[in-house]
Structure formats: structure tokens, C-alpha cells
């Protein structure tokens, strides 16, 4: 097609001599909206088919576990192989109960955001096992440095639901004084580090906490959670380096849920290797686990916790799972991925699978499950009503203005004191009183 030559759009210079021209590879997910999904190419291995090395094994002797999938629960709903944690039925029911509670909580809070009660929410649907099972495998005083989709840890550790909702509503009872985006919880009492919102920053912090525990001759260990997309951050590399160098008693959990907002895992390197394999380059023990298999998740976390507690150092675990819902209430995944992915996910749903296992071994039934779901929904509903008495976002029932200036430093410096006076003057100018809503 002939036309005037645009000097800005000249063709690339011809390759020099015999050298071929280069081309850039930009990853592309297999399926986009409307596509028919076929996940049969994903090698999910066989439940019970993976060896379980001793917790003191050298990482180089267990390399294959970074590439396969540790699985316990089979399609026959039975637990298989050496990774079967052999939990008693009461513990299994407890695990199922926590997962059901998280799901009920997510449903209600998501709806609450849609009803304008708060600004933001993030569900963990489909990923419940990746936080609840590891939390149950840890000791209650081990320290966790979560990312933003690990509400299951708080549920498993018995954090009061009303505190979670107060935080989500940023109301006058919010223990974080309305300062943080909803779901960025913090509870020292529950060994749950303040969630940042900046990605992967918690990973070297967990390593530092673990190093401190080792420096002090303590017996507590640390664990951190990070999304597969965020492993691209330099912080993650720093965390792995420090964990390896100092043999830190830490568990580095990567939640590979396939999607980082709209970017598929290929943008974090998944086209070339597994995320678990990252560990091997550092000489860190690495496990890759079916993240929708609560028993496999528990067993892997327990292995890593035993290893860390025996002073055998860090473990990196990749939980292979699927983010069944959008990234957050601000996200619409129908714009970038096929809705069929969730249905076709080859490793099913973690709640359904654990429930089927419990029924199959004669320790649960549909009636009890239905009753439990109802009980969870009722409890969340009642607690929500209770929390709403403390206010919802934007309805005036927030912490006093002066608290905005507190905790920037341990003591209020003069410039913040002046600014606090200004904020209160502005308030009075607008409403005639500092606290118009009581």
C-alpha cells in the first residue's frame, strides 16, 4: 500500500549481517471471555502418588516435589498416600467448619459492599483451604505475615467476627481506628501481622521475625503468604535470599491462584517453570501442593512447620489453586477471562471435596452440612447487625478527629498538634461542633 513516508514509522533497521531479527514474547493466557476452556493439559498427577521425604531432607534430594502436585484427596473422596495427615474426624469437621464460615462471611461482606456499607471487599472463594489448613498446622503462637486474601487464618484462630466487620466498616469500634482499607486486618494477639496492601513487603518481614526468633532461641516460627503475581517483586527475592542465608525458621507460602487482577500467572513466569521451583535456586526446600485439597495443604504446612521448628530452615510452598471470584469488589473478571475456567478447574472446590471426604468416611452428612451452612449464615448476619450499631462507612460513626494524628509517632510532635487543631477548627466551622454525630 503506497503512501507518503512517515519518518516516525520507518521499518526497523535490517538485521546486521547474518543475524536474525529478534522478536519480543508477550505472554497470553489460553482463554479469554467466551472461550471454551479445556484444562486437560494441566498435569495434576495422582492422589497419594508423591513421596514424602523426611523433614530434614536436603532440598536437592526432593527437587521433584517442586514440579509435581502433592495430593491426598482422590476422586473417590478417600485420603491417599504418605502425605495423608491422618487427622481425626473432629479436626476435619473443624476445618470444614472454618471453610464454611469464611465462605458465609465473604458472601455477606461482598453484599454489604454492594449495599454501600463499605468501600471495598475481597473474597477468597476457592482458596479457603490455602489459609485455613496451614493455619491449623501451625501453633497458635506462630507468627503469620499474610497478604490480603488470608481471612481464613483469622477465622481459624478464633478472631472475633465482629472485629473483622468493624474493621471492614471503618466504624467507631474499628480497632484500627478507620485508618486502613477494609480487610487490611491486624491482630498481634492472634499472631496476625498488619496487612500492608503493598505487595510482597510482608515476605522479608516474616523472614526477619523468624530470624529474631532464632536469635532469641525462641521456639516460635513465622509464615508468610504471597500471591504468585507478587513473587515478581524484589522483596520476594530478598526474602528468599535472607531465609536461605540465615536458615530462617520461616514458611514462604505462594498462593498460585492463576490470576493477578487481570494478568495471568504467565506474567510472573509460570510459562517456564513452577513457582515452587523458585525455592530450589536458593537451596530452599520446595513443595507444590493441590491448593484445593485441604488435607494436602495441611500436610505440606505441617511438614514445613516441623522442618522449621527442628532448625532445618525455610520451606517454600506453592499452593496451586484458582481464584474463583474477581480480584475484589472493584474488579470484573468477565472482562478478561473465560467464565468457564472456574467450572472446568481440574482440582474442584475445596469445601465440596472435604465435605465429600467426611461424608464418605461416615463422619458427616448432608443434613448436618446444610444446618452448618445455615448456622454460619445466621451468625454472620447477626454479627453484622451488631457491628452496624457501631456505624458503617461514611455515616459519621467514626473515631474522633484527633485520632487521625495519633500513632504517626509514639508522641505527637508540634507540627501534627498544630494540624490537628486545624482539622478540628475546620470541623467546627462546618458543623458547629467537633462531633456532630456523637
Amino acid at each position, binding site marked *: 500500500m503506497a503512501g507518503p513516508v512517515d519518518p516516525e514509522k520507518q521499518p526497523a533497521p535490517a538485521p546486521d549481517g547474518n543475524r536474525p531479527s529478534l522478536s519480543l514474547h508477550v505472554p497470553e493466557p489460553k482463554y479469554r471471555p467466551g472461550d471454551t476452556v479445556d484444562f486437560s493439559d494441566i498435569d495434576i498427577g495422582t492422589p497419594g502418588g508423591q513421596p514424602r521425604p523426611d523433614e530434614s531432607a536436603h532440598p536437592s534430594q526432593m527437587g521433584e516435589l517442586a514440579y509435581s502436585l502433592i495430593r491426598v484427596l482422590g476422586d473417590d473422596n478417600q485420603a491417599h498416600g504418605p502425605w495423608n495427615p491422618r487427622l481425626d474426624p473432629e479436626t476435619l469437621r473443624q476445618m470444614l467448619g472454618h471453610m464454611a464460615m469464611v465462605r458465609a462471611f465473604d458472601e455477606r461482606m461482598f453484599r454489604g459492599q454492594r449495599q454501600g456499607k463499605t468501600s471495598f471487599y475481597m473474597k477468597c472463594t476457592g482458596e479457603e483451604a490455602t489459609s485455613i489448613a496451614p493455619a491449623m498446622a501451625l501453633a497458635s503462637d506462630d507468627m503469620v505475615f499474610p497478604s490480603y486474601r488470608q481471612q481464613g487464618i483469622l477465622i481459624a484462630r478464633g478472631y472475633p467476627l465482629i472485629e473483622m466487620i468493624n474493621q471492614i466498616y471503618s466504624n467507631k469500634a474499628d480497632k484500627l481506628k478507620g485508618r486502613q482499607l477494609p480487610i487490611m486486618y491486624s491482630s498481634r494477639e492472634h499472631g496476625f501481622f498488619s496487612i500492608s496492601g503493598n505487595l510482597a*513487603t510482608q515476605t522479608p518481614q516474616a523472614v526477619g521475625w523468624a530470624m529474631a526468633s532464632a536469635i532469641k532461641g525462641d521456639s516460635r516460627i513465622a509464615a508468610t503468604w504471597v500471591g504468585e503475581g507478587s513473587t515478581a517483586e524484589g522483596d520476594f527475592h530478598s526474602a528468599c535470599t535472607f531465609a536461605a542465608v540465615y536458615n530462617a525458621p520461616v514458611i514462604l507460602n505462594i498462593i498460585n491462584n492463576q490470576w493477578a487482577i487481570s494478568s495471568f500467572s504467565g506474567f510472573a513466569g509460570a510459562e517456564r517453570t513452577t513457582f515452587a521451583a523458585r525455592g530450589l535456586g536458593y537451596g530452599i526446600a520446595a513443595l507444590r501442593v493441590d491448593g484445593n485439597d485441604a488435607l494436602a495443604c495441611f500436610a505440606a504446612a505441617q511438614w514445613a512447620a516441623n522442618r522449621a521448628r527442628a532448625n532445618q530452615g525455610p520451606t517454600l510452598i506453592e499452593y496451586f489453586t484458582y481464584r474463583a471470584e474477581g480480584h475484589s469488589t472493584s474488579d470484573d473478571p468477565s472482562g478478561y477471562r473465560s467464565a468457564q475456567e472456574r467450572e472446568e478447574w481440574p482440582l474442584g472446590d475445596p469445601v465440596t471435596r472435604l465435605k465429600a471426604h467426611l461424608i464418605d468416611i461416615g463422619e458427616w452428612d448432608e443434613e448436618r452440612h446444610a444446618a452448618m451452612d445455615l448456622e454460619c449464615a445466621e451468625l454472620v448476619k447477626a454479627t453484622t447487625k451488631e457491628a452496624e450499631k457501631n456505624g458503617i462507612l461514611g455515616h459519621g460513626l467514626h473515631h474522633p478527629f484527633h485520632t487521625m494524628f495519633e500513632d504517626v*509517632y509514639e508522641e505527637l510532635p508540634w507540627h501534627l498538634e498544630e494540624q490537628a487543631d486545624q482539622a478540628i477548627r475546620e470541623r467546627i466551622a462546618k458543623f458547629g461542633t467537633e462531633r456532630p454525630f456523637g
Partner: protein
Amino acid sequence: MSEDTQTVANAETAPERRLNMIEAINEALDIMLARDPDVIIMGEDVGYFGGVFRATAGLQAKHGKTRVFDTPISECGIIGVAVGMGAYGLRPVPEIQFADYIYPGLDQLISEAARLRYRSAGDFIAPMTVRSPFGGGIFGGQTHSQSPEAIFTHVSGLKTVIPATPYDAKGLLIAAIEDNDPVIFFEPKRIYNGPFSGFYDKPVEPWKKHADSVVPEGYYRIPLGKARIVRTGEAMTILTYGTMVHVAEAVAREKGVDAEIIDLRTLVPLDIEAIEASVEKTGRCMIVHEATRTSGFGAELSALVTERCFYHLEAPVERVTGFDTPYPHSLEWAYFPGPVRIGDAIDKLLKD
């Protein structure tokens, strides 16, 4: 009688000891390692070797490898693990080998250490003192000479401390380590060994000839947020810190100007009372720092003085700074805000 005054009282009867700034810093670290089992020191080359400037010399041998240790070359990692250690209950004192290298750790400092107390409503804190040599005048080129203090003074939640003498370095460092907020402790490396006057063509005097090299033994602290009046005067106020305290002092002396020189010592929190009292007395104000000019801390000082002391001012506030270029190597002394630049500003300030 508080422990602070007691120690000083004892020191007054002890024989006079003179230390350079490195020795004073080393002593502060040694004292804090001994006093508080939660203090740990880490950084590149700080362990067995004792640091490229020798600030941690002998500390690993004395206090052990789990209290004083080398780290990977990863400023993000150093600050990141320090946040986690603080959450555990330790009081880490990480060293960043040069202030110019601190940038890979900025996210951990700005978004994490500085914000942790606030975002967790006091549930978690990140007490840490990040020590780092800063400033030029040593032919370090652009990656060993910068003065990035204004990046940190702009961050709510951080404190920024810069000593100008061995006595202050020890007392301020102890106070910084004991502080429950994250502190950036910038050490002016040009004056590690002597109070550089800015007259680079004259021989440098060692610290032992300077009154503020007398450093008492043992524990003492200088509170953060309190400025030091280096010399009193009536003709003008010079607000400065770090190396430039000594340069400003030498120039004022050389020119015979009756300047009141204030060494700020802490930029955040700032001793606004000392600044206001001095400027209201002299009616003229000059600010001297080595850092680049645009959005430098001098801009903040100038704004504060103008806002708060305007009706006492007899002339516009003068700023003397480095130029807005990367720190050059061969033209170091053309960049450095030395005696000529300060002298011109003094003349201008006194003209009206």
C-alpha cells in the same frame, strides 16, 4: 536524679577523653548492645570486618555473631527483615553502607516501617535506627556523596537525625536506638575524622582539637528534636546541620560576622522554638545545606521561617545549597556549598 544527669556528673570528674565521630558512634553502639539484649546490628560488611568506615569495628567479636552480623547486598532485604525483627520485639540498628544505596529499601521504609504504628493503631511498631554515612566532600562521585535527607523528612512516621560532632553523635545515636519510632540517622562522613571547615585547600584539623570531641564514657542521651546553639550572635541566624555546621562556622569566623549558628541535629521532629527565638532576635535568616536545592529541606525551613517570623524579618531568607545536579566527581568543590557561596549569601543578607 535521673540516670542521664548522673552519668554526666560522673563523667565530669573523669579524665577528658577525645574521640573522633567514628569512635563515638562505635562507642554508642557498643553501649547499647551491652545495655539492651534486644539491640542487634546488621548490614553489609559490618560483622567480622567492622564496616567500611570501621563504625562497627570489634563489635562482633565482643557481642557475638547473632548480635552483629553481615547481610546480603540487599537494602530492601535489610530494611524488610528489620521491620519483622521490630515486630518481634527487637531493636535493630541496620547500617546502609552509603546513603546513596538506600533507595532499594525505600518501600520498606516509607510504606512499611514509617506506617506500621499508624496502620495497626499501635498494635505493631517498627523501632529501628537506620545508620548511613551521607554527604560529599570525599571525592565519592555521584553514588557516594548524596544528601537525600529531604526524601525522608517528607515521609510522615520517620524521624531524621544528623549529628555534627562526636559528642552529639554518641548521645543522639543512643537516643535514636531507644526511640520507638523508625529513625534515619545520617552520619556526615566528611567529618568522621575532623570538623571540615569547607576550606578544602587548607589542612584538615583532627577532632582532638575541637571542644565537642570530648566524649564522656558510658551512657548518655541527647533528646531528639532539640537543636544546639553552636554560637550565639545578633547579626543573623544560620540554620544548618551536619558538615555544613562547621563550614558555616568557619566562614562566619573568617568574615567576622556576629552570626547565631543553630545546628538543628534533628530535622523531624524539628526544634521550631529554637528557630523562632533566634530569628525573632536577629531578624535575618540563612539556611545552609549540602543537598540539592529544589524541594530540599531548606525550602521547608524557609517556608516555616517566613510563615512564623515574617514580621521580624529585615531581609528575605537566604538559602545556600548544593546545585540541582548529580554530585560531580572532578568538579566536587564547584558543587559543594563552600566558603564563597556562603560568604556571598552572608553579604547579601546583611546588605539591607
